[in-house]
């Protein structure tokens, strides 16, 4: 017979089983009737005829069975039967089923959700060929305080070329700039300058056109630009003849030489343009140029680090501020590490710990369900004994037990997946800035496969437990004696208690973890930001070179705009600066020198942030001026620039000298672009610039200037306005937009946000881990309590007769209650002790997640202990009360 026909038949046998059965029935009956009729015709009575017919026919059931076997779907039918049987069993005990399914759903759902994030963010390689050979090339000093990307342009582009560890090395640097030309309005876009070797490092070619030529990557070479796929589609309608046309980047005409493939996102998604870096070998020394390299096959990052560190002293021949002694004293070394670390480094500890947490929750869930199944197995001992006595095969009993577990698990896993898909869509929204590879998070085949595997292992374990427990059942003894044994057997009791202790211990670990994170979050909430975020609305206005060519026009524009804003209704005060605190930005750090202080030639000058600010900015932000005066508009006209420094600069750089009147300059001395001195006119408070949990680095705020002073000019070109107002944000932004349109209709009002939302975003990382931990801990605690409750209830029920005897012999209800309560507390206390020990031994893991709280924080540990003991007592209370209310007479008759 042909295969398809056979499959069709099988399907029919499975699907229309009922019809086939009734047809079979009818055919058999017809045969019997005809046979009987034959006998009747020969003159025997109806009854006798029927008897003879039956005799001749033989066992109808036996024939039917043979026919059923003939359909060839016996195994499937039996499995379906077992599943249906399991389902009926589960439906009979809805409480148990609901508890088990919910427990499993929470355990599995949490794991699937977190694993999808882990898989998407940490495990799935970057979207480049051989991504594990991609490394970041950086430098660090012994203190490790600021991982300096030291004069990387020098090192990577010149000195490290002698290295044998790399296939290719590249530098890149991200900034923002204006884009004009093509069909659209002027745009403010993310731009990345790259050395032309970047395409060799990443091994990605433009989808259209070509990479940069050596000529284009040289200073004063022809200007070239490569577009992102998204920009090409949006702005140029995906025009394939785009190559060779020109656009203006920051007002300078560039020839479009290529379009990157869709999905190419380096170094961040959203970069619209790549331009050549055009490193000037006669003028090296940028401190903030990240390097990326592709290791030769087989070379480890450690080997590469060693080799580059050996080459590092070569830098001294090219710069006049680094000597071999400086390098030695600062403990300056190369630092080559996987590029993926930089992409996901910040979230890695959070995610791994969170995963461990939900893993614990799953374990607790499994223990809980195992424990529930054990109870069930014991209550079913009589049923099993009866069935064995009636000839049920042990193998079939095992199969049925497995089928029941499988049903539970299917329901649990199904519900868990629903929960997980909900969580996966919600997670990124909870922590928009925290998860760096958002696009990669989804529930995919790998995640599903892992879940299925875990679920299968759990199902088998669950299914086997009750059967093994009941294997020793001797049908005769069981049926005779029933569950009347006065006490439960010691072994079972101990196994179950061990399970509960393990649960409580795991719940303790979860609670300690989430308690610590909660305390950290609380501390972070109350950290001194250095500014008052409430009531401040912010937005960015960027001025393209094409329209604002001079520093003077830039300063003029910003002052004019500020004047307009100040006259708007409800505005208290307004000012502007280059970047907001706490927002991911391209903050500029450079060494800071002070006039009259000649740093020893070998000492690296301390770093300070370089900012531009307008008058009004400090008042608008609520940053206190602690000495001297704030910036004034007249400072813009001063021959010598005016600056404010923060308190930490006074402390670290000026070392006790009076700050007002001192003169400082960013950058190193005696280089071609050496910056002139500026007068310090005031001191302001520090703000948390980079992130909530990092101490302020210290900043110098420059007044806008009328004459271009070296490379200071670009800092003022794109400014964030901070407006302290009583107006609703939307209304204020609408009026600001109207004012801007009157001043210059070609400029967009970008990045409109409230300062509160900026701070909230900065907290999102901590909030994300806190939420994850709290949810895991609450579920863990809840499950632990349920487990304890279940065990104590069961033990109490089993001991009903024993308790009855005791009460008949004079035990008081309160002594019975106390004994059961005590048992609950002892079990929780043992679990608690084990859990605390485990939490302490894991404390190093928690460290990167905490802020201002020691992993051994006594407040947290005490609170956790109290919560756990209370939960334990509560879980024991109900069974204890039930036992104390027992009527001894009824208890003794209890079956």
């Amino acid at each position, binding site marked *: *017979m042909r295969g398809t026909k056979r499959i069709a*038949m099988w399907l029919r046998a499975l699907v229309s089983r009922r019809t086939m059965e009734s047809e079979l029935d009818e*055919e058999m009956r*017809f*045969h019997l009737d005809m*046979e009987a009729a034959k006998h009747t015709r020969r003159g025997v009575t109806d009854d006798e005829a029927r008897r003879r017919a039956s005799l001749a026919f*033989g066992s109808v059931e036996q024939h039917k069975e043979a026919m059923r076997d*003939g359909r060839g779907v016996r195994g499937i039918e039996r499995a379906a039967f077992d599943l249906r049987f399991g389902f009926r069993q589960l439906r009979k005990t809805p409480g148990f089923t609901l508890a088990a399914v919910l427990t499993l759903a929470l355990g599995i759902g949490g794991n699937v959700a977190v694993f999808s994030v882990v898989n998407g963010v940490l495990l799935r390689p970057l979207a480049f060929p051989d991504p594990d050979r991609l490394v970041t090339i950086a430098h660090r000093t012994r203190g490790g305080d600021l991982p300096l990307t030291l004069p990387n342009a020098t090192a990577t582009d010149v000195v490290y070329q002698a290295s044998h560890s790399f296939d290719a090395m590249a530098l890149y640097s991200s900034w923002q700039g204006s884009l004009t030309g093509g069909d659209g309005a002027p745009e403010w876009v993310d731009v990345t300058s790259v050395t032309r070797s970047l395409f060799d490092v990443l091994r990605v070619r433009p989808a259209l056109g070509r990479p940069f030529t050596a000529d284009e990557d040289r200073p004063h070479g022809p200007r070239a630009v490569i577009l992102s796929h998204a920009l090409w589609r949006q702005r140029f309608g995906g025009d394939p003849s785009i190559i060779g046309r020109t656009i203006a980047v920051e007002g300078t005409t560039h020839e479009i030489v290529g379009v990157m493939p869709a999905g190419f996102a380096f170094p961040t998604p959203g970069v619209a343009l790549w331009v050549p870096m055009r490193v000037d070998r006669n003028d090296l020394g940028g401190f903030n140029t990240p390097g990326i390299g592709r290791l030769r096959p087989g070379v480890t990052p450690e080997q590469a680090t060693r080799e580059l560190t050996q080459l590092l002293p070569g830098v001294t021949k090219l710069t006049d501020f680094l000597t071999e002694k400086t390098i030695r004293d600062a403990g300056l070394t190369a630092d080559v590490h996987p590029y993926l670390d930089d992409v996901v480094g910040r979230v890695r500890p959070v995610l791994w710990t969170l995963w461990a947490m939900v893993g614990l929750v799953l374990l607790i869930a499994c223990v809980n369900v195992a424990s529930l199944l054990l109870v069930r197995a014991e209550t079913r001992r009589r049923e099993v004994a009866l069935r064995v006595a009636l000839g049920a095969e042990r193998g079939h009993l095992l199969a049925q037990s497995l089928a029941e577990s499988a049903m539970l698990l299917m329901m649990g896993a199904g519900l868990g997946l629903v929960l997980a898909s909900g969580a996966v869509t919600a997670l990124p929204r909870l922590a928009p800035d925290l998860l760096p590879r958002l696009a990669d998070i989804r529930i995919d085949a790998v995640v599903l496969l892992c879940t299925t595997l875990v679920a299968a292992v759990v199902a088998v374990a669950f299914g086997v437990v009750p059967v093994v427990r009941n294997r020793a059942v001797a049908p005769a003894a069981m049926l005779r004696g029933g569950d009347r044994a006065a006490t439960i057997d010691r072994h079972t009791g101990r196994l179950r208690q061990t399970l509960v202790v393990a649960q409580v211990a795991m719940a303790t670990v979860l609670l300690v973890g989430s308690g610590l994170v909660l305390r950290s979050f609380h501390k972070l909430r109350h950290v001194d930001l250095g500014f008052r975020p409430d009531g401040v609305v912010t937005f960015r206005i960027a001025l393209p070179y094409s329209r604002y060519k001079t520093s003077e026009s830039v300063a003029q524009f910003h002052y004019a705009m500020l004047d307009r804003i100040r006259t708007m209704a409800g505005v208290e005060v307004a000012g502007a600066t280059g970047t907001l605190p706490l927002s991911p930005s391209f903050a500029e750090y450079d060494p800071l020198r002070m006039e009259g202080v000649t740093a020893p030639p070998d000492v690296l000058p301390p770093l300070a942030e370089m900012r531009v600010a307008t008058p009004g900015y400090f008042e608008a932000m609520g940053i206190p001026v602690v000495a001297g005066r704030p910036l004034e508009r007249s400072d813009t006209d001063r021959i010598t620039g005016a600056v404010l420094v923060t308190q930490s600069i006074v402390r670290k750089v000026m070392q006790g000298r009076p700050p007002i009147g001192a003169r400082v300059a960013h950058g190193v001395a005696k280089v071609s672009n050496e910056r002139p001195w500026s007068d310090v006119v005031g001191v302001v408070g520090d703000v948390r610039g980079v992130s909530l949990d990092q101490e302020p680095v210290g900043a110098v705020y420059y007044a806008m200037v009328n004459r271009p002073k070296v490379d200071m000019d670009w800092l003022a070109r794109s400014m964030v306005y901070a407006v302290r107002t009583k107006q609703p944000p939307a209304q204020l932004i609408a009026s600001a937009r109207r004012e801007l349109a009157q001043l210059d209709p070609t400029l967009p009002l970008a990045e409109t946000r409230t300062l509160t939302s900026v701070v909230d975003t900065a907290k999102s990382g901590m909030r994300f881990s806190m939420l994850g931990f709290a949810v895991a801990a609450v579920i863990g605690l809840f499950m632990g309590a349920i487990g304890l409750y279940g065990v104590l209830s069961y033990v109490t029920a089993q001991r009903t007769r024993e308790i009855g005897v005791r009460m008949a012999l004079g035990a008081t209800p309160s002594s019975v209650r106390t004994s059961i309560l005590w048992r609950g507390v002892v079990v929780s206390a043992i679990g608690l002790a084990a859990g605390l020990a485990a939490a302490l031994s894991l404390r190093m893991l928690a460290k990167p997640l905490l802020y201002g709280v020691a992993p051994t924080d006594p407040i947290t540990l005490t609170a956790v202990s109290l919560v756990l003991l209370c939960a334990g007592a509560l879980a024991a209370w109900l069974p204890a009360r039930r036992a104390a209310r027992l009527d001894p007479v009824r208890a003794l008759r209890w079956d």
Partner: protein
Amino acid sequence: MGESSNEPLRGTIDLLVLRTLSLAPMHGWGITQRIQQATDGVLEVNQGSLYPALQRLEQKEWIDSEWRVTDNNRRAKYYRLTPLGRKALGAETQSWRRLVVAVEQLLRTT
């Protein structure tokens, strides 16, 4: 019943059923009666082997079945030979004859 002497040889039941159905479509009981009549009661087909055989033949597509109403107005499942079954009947008959000749030959030479 169940006298082994009256039961057809194992494996020949397919042939008997096919041959019987080649005359006219028939229900299961009819087949047993027809075989009994045609062999003067020498061969009695056991229901326990008849129905599995019918199922097997149907799965091989040598016969097919439909529910029809009998002369005395009852529903019964009628089996009918398919063209494939007719071909198979020829082949089965041939091989049966060869077998009979071979067994005869063996008996004579002894």
